[in-house]
């Protein structure tokens, strides 16, 4: 990197192709599929349940390797999580998958009662979250899942930035013994981390160091935040970029440390800002270190059909929208 470029945290071991057209694009659900297979090899109590979407949720890899530990539930998301709860009761470690719109979209009460209140070790994987699902339209573009899962006691909520982080998150979750929700996306997105990048449940990672403003992002939009920081640097705005993959428990220490430096925070997510990452960060900062928090994300709307770039532009969550938001904030006295 030249001295004109942003201060990428070298400890993060990010991809060397970060701002090049050569950056690898992979859907993060692929990382989940690989992670589940790897975790399954290490722990034979891991079982996989799917609601008729085995291939598109990337559970196929596990199914092929361990057919006797794969359970087809059919199109029945309430049964998906409750059978999962029962399996956990007899010592299995179930990973249950569907599209996020259906699970946890349809079966919230069952997750609340039979998994969270009942404290059973079930991992809920919601794929195809966000407007980036694309042409399938609003019914299949889950935007409320982070909020729905985050309000449940005993629940951990993780939104990996890319496929490598999704793999690591899956393997890390396989070693925990409490309920968790893992949010995945459908489309190919930039692989920004590498095998060497650090990942820890509950730890936010400072990817870029800056001093004018803090960008806290999760999921595939972490890359949009990086691109925005890169561009802002050219306009002499130094943005710190935090990858906040664990929404709950929130790493408020890392976020507050950054806020103390920059005095203003922007959250970035492909989900409803009410109750999502934006909600979580606002709640933490309001009591612990009150600075203005601006929330980039879905602003109380439903999605619609379109391409990823059209939709990210329309819903103002891409790097352009982040840059615009930051410039407006910086202009403020």
């Amino acid at each position, binding site marked *: 990197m030249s001295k004109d470029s942003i201060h990428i945290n070298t400890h993060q071991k990010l991809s060397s192709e970060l701002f090049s057209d050569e950056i690898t694009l992979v859907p993060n659900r692929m990382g989940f599929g690989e992670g589940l297979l790897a975790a399954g090899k290490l722990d034979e109590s891991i079982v996989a349940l799917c609601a008729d979407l085995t291939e598109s949720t990337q559970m196929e890899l596990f199914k092929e390797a361990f057919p006797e530990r794969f359970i087809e539930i059919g199109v*029945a998301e309430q049964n998906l999580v409750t059978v999962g*709860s*029962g399996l956990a009761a007899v010592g299995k470690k179930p990973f249950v998958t569907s599209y996020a719109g259906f699970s946890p979209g349809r079966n919230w009460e069952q997750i609340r009662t039979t998994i969270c209140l009942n404290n059973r070790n079930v991992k809920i994987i919601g794929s195809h979250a966000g407007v980036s699902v694309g042409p399938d339209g609003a019914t299949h573009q889950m935007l409320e899942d982070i909020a729905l899962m985050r309000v449940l006691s005993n629940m951990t909520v993780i939104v990996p930035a890319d496929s490598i982080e999704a793999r690591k998150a899956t393997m890390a979750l396989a070693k925990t013994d409490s309920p968790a929700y893992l949010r995945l996306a459908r489309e190919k997105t930039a692989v920004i981390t590498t095998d060497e990048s650090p990942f820890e449940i509950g730890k936010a990672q400072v990817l870029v160091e800056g001093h004018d403003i803090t960008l806290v992002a999760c999921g595939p939009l972490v890359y949009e935040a990086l691109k925005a920081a890169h561009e802002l640097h050219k306009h002499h705005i130094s943005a710190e970029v935090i990858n906040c993959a664990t929404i709950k428990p929130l790493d408020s220490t890392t976020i507050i440390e950054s806020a103390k430096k920059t005095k203003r925070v922007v959250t970035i997510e492909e989900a409803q800002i009410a109750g999502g990452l934006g909600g979580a960060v606002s709640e933490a900062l309001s009591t612990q270190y009150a600075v203005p928090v601006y929330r980039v994300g879905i602003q109380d709307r439903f999605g619609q059909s379109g391409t990823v770039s059209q939709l990210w532009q329309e819903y103002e969550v891409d790097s352009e929208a982040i840059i615009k938001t930051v410039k407006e904030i910086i202009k403020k006295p």
Partner: protein
Amino acid sequence: MNVLTQKELKLKADIIRQDIITMLTQAGSGHTAGPLGMADVFTALYFAGLMKYDPHKPDWPERDRLVLSNGHINPVLYVTMAHAGYFPHAELKTLRQFGTRLQGHPERTRLPGLETTSGPLGSGMSQAAGMAYGLQMDGKKHQHVFCLVSDGEHQEGNLWEAMMFAGKNKLRNLTVIVDRNNIQIDGNTEDVMPLEPLSMKYQAFNWHVIEIDGHNFEEIAGAVGQARAIFEKPTCIIAHTIPGKGVDFMENDSRFHGMFGTADIPGDPPKAEQGKVALAELRTLQGKIRSEHE
């Protein structure tokens, strides 16, 4: 585990019913008809040698599981568990009080011996099916999972998803016992949302079905024995029961689905007296022991 004779079972069930009335009176709220109606089934499961359990080792891996799906009838579960030795009998009077292990609806993490947390209806059968499936995966085919469901609960969609799943997977170590008492909060099940022909519905989903008198210990034991022996299917025991069984003015009256003593009903004892009258009736085995009346 103590296996009681038919006569002893009858007396045990009567004492369990008395304890249900006493604990509900103490708590001041809770459900009445379902617990009284299922007292014989619970007595049989725990005291007729039908279930493998050890109250001193509630997590014993070899135990059979009892999943209470209709969590609101938990008074009968709590009382039976106390009699089985899971916790001190005196603790029954803490039902629904602050700090109790005997929550208004059962919470597994608070009371050792509970297999799950329930209250919202329709999800117990799925959990029981998951347990049965998991036990089979580990080759523990003789460990049985019992799931108790209400009849009104069959209006929940989740339950039919579970029924389909268990039928497809031939979960022979799963037995569902339906409390067919025909009442629910808003009235008669067949008026609220008809369930019949219930037996045929289970059969169509690849279940073995046995219909019994839920107050006849021989029939309960016979059905459970048959359920354990059936090899290729899960079993559904439809237990025809009388809600409020054992207390004349409560029997078959959907107004006693919930708590007694809340309203004066023409022809019934005054509300303040209902608990006392119910207890007297149970203590005298419905008038058969006259000395109690004096």
